[in-house]
């Protein structure tokens, strides 16, 4: 390891933000908190983007690692202890003054503090806790804080940090325990899922989780420094790396579904794998990071959270991957033509939600509007329905928009002509057009080992 003494803040910031950038979560959403009239900061539930980086992603938080002097050896991570890269660690004071000064100038909504593992999980978690304590109690910072729970750290430390943070996350990293063992031998499902469960319980009870009153006196929160002494009020999230290991979409989405249902996560993030270490044992993906696959997973995730779909409806052992050319909802509809066409003037909300081209907002508006009039296709357009997608699947007062066939191949062909099936930002990032034959998903299905999750 190269550890330099007397590094400038600038050098540290560059190293430790560069090291943090593969964590995709940057939102400042999920909590509304007015200013307290004295300290600095407030929070707005939908979140605020302060700028957009060169890859087009929203920058909302000062996203940094506390340290990249990591003793672990996760092979997908550039900070793993076998890598010969520049190393640095912040002090709690340095993180505080960067956060405060950036926040005053309106560069950021708050802090996203993650970390490599310095000395030991407990040692690191304690440093993180001290940083948050200083920030909240000494600097009176009332803005957004997202903090990482360190796998394997003492639950008491995680709990204390949780009372100071708005969101907490612990990355699942890889969809299956096997892949985790292979790529991140120092981590295990247990060290990841135990704190995840603890945070979940903490959010529920919003009280001291351990019944351990011994440190209550030293709790910063009993000093009434924050108006709302809530435990992780914006909920918890996690992240999985996509494409480093052979799991199929069915496995990945099943894990996500388990996390939403059993762990009540607010968000699961998917991160297209970038082979930063040029590690020969890890795949080099020919088209660059699998951005389109990542996009399909986010779309499917959306279907789970807001459209009442379950994974088993979208995918199966026999059909374990999304059609990369179609969005998952169109893909589902094509395979379930027996549900269509849907009559706009009669269908219930949940049925409308499942029609390609009808989003949650349009479905609500349809229900509202048809109370007073019979809707026709012109009305649907005004309401915001994407007719070029929906027209194959709906009738208005018994009529279809054009004469079409309710036939899988026919509709599929027509839908594929619509280039918006592949989102603009991916089309324009120089995404290579691979032919249909290149996406023969030939990976053998892996046994799903989700013992703790499902």
């Amino acid at each position, binding site marked *: 390891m190269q550890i330099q003494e007397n590094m400038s803040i600038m050098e540290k*910031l560059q190293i430790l933000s560069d090291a943090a*950038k593969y964590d995709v979560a940057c939102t400042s959403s999920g909590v509304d908190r007015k*200013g307290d009239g004295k300290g600095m900061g407030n929070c*707005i539930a939908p979140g*605020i983007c302060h700028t957009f980086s060169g890859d*087009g992603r929203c920058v909302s938080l000062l*996203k940094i690692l506390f340290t990249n002097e990591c003793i672990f050896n996760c092979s997908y991570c550039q900070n793993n202890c076998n890598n010969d890269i520049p190393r640095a660690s912040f002090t709690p004071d340095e993180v505080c003054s960067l956060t405060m000064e950036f926040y005053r100038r309106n*560069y950021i909504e708050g802090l996203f503090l993650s970390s490599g593992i310095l000395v030991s999980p407990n040692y690191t978690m304690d440093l993180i806790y001290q940083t948050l304590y200083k920030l909240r109690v000494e600097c009176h910072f009332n803005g957004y804080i997202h903090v990482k729970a360190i796998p394997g750290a003492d639950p008491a430390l995680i709990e204390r940090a949780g009372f100071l943070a708005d969101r907490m996350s612990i990355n699942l990293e890889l969809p299956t325990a096997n892949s985790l063992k292979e790529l991140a031998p120092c981590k295990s499902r247990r060290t990841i899922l135990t704190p995840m469960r603890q945070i979940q319980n903490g959010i529920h009870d919003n009280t001291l989780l351990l019944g351990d009153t011994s440190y209550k006196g030293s709790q910063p929160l009993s000093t009434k420094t924050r108006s709302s002494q809530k435990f992780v009020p914006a909920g918890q999230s996690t992240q999985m790396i996509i494409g480093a290991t052979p799991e199929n979409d069915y496995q990945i989405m099943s894990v996500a579904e388990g996390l939403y249902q059993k762990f009540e996560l607010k968000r699961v993030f998917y991160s297209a794998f970038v082979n930063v270490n040029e590690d020969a044992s890890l795949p080099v993906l020919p088209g660059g990071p699998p951005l389109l696959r990542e996009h399909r997973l986010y779309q499917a995730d959306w279907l789970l959270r807001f459209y009442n779909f379950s994974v088993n409806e979208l995918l199966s052992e026999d059909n374990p991957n999304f059609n990369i050319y179609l969005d998952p909802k169109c893909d589902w509809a094509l395979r379930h033509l027996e549900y269509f066409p849907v009559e706009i003037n009669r269908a219930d909300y949940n049925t409308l939600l499942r029609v390609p081209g009808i989003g949650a907002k349009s479905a609500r508006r349809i229900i509202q509007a048809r109370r007073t009039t019979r809707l026709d296709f012109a009305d649907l357009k005004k309401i915001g329905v994407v007719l070029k997608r929906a027209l194959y699947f709906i009738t208005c007062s018994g009529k279809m928009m054009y004469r079409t066939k309710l036939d899988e191949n026919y509709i599929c062909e027509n839908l594929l002509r619509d280039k918006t099936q592949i989102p603009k930002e991916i089309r324009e990032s120089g995404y290579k057009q691979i032919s249909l034959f290149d996406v023969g998903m030939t990976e053998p299905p892996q046994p799903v080992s989700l013992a703790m999750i499902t």
Partner: protein
Amino acid sequence: MYVFICEDTIDGIFTAVYNAWDSHLGHKNIYILAKEPENYELFCEYIRVETDLEKSKKVADTIKRRLGVTVYTTLCEAIMAEEPCPKKTSRMNAADTFSITKADAFYRTLLYAFSMENPTRIMECLGNPYVLYLFELSRNVHTEAHHLLGFLRFQELQNGILFAETHPKNYVLPILGDHFSDRLPGENFMIYDKNRKLALIHRAGIKNFLITDASSINQEMIHNYSASELEYQKLWCGFFESITIEARKNPKLQNQNIPKRFQKDAVEFQK
């Protein structure tokens, strides 16, 4: 036709509504305009409206009471919009001598709302062209203001004041003022709307802020940075550079998400 000409401010337009109502000239015969007419029509009488805070307050109170605070906020946002509305969906009717503009649309919307059984639902009546127009304006203002809550940049001056310069299309200073005085109660700050030559001023420890004419702002003062200002700008720019994932680089998406007109006031985009 009687054309009431008023100031392009909330108080100006509210006063005009009060006067128009009070004139008993018949709603059909009235048109309210918040700017100088481009040419004077032959058969029109032009009536100048003197902004009157008392009348304005009466109108505001009535709207809040009958239409609710949410609708009131939406209407105020619409009035803060710069015309013409860039979305151009104002569905202008060529047969109208007087096209839809915000002050008159505001008047018509109120008339319509007061005729409704439940006026609090006025903003749902998007079939009405005046309501639709105000709705679009308010969305426009709202979007720009929300952008600026993120994209505004303060610089610390020698005297410790935080100073931000911005070029908004709409009059969004009041929205920014609410947000930043809640967020930074302990700071002296100033937000300068260079397009309108107006400055919003907030004093540390005081809940309110004021907006004042700043056409003679001291250029030297606003470029006189504190000792550490450039240091933090450099740190921020360094962070901004290193946070990009090279393998996902996508300048088009970046420009789509933070349009060029906002980039020019954001320090990380200055070369």
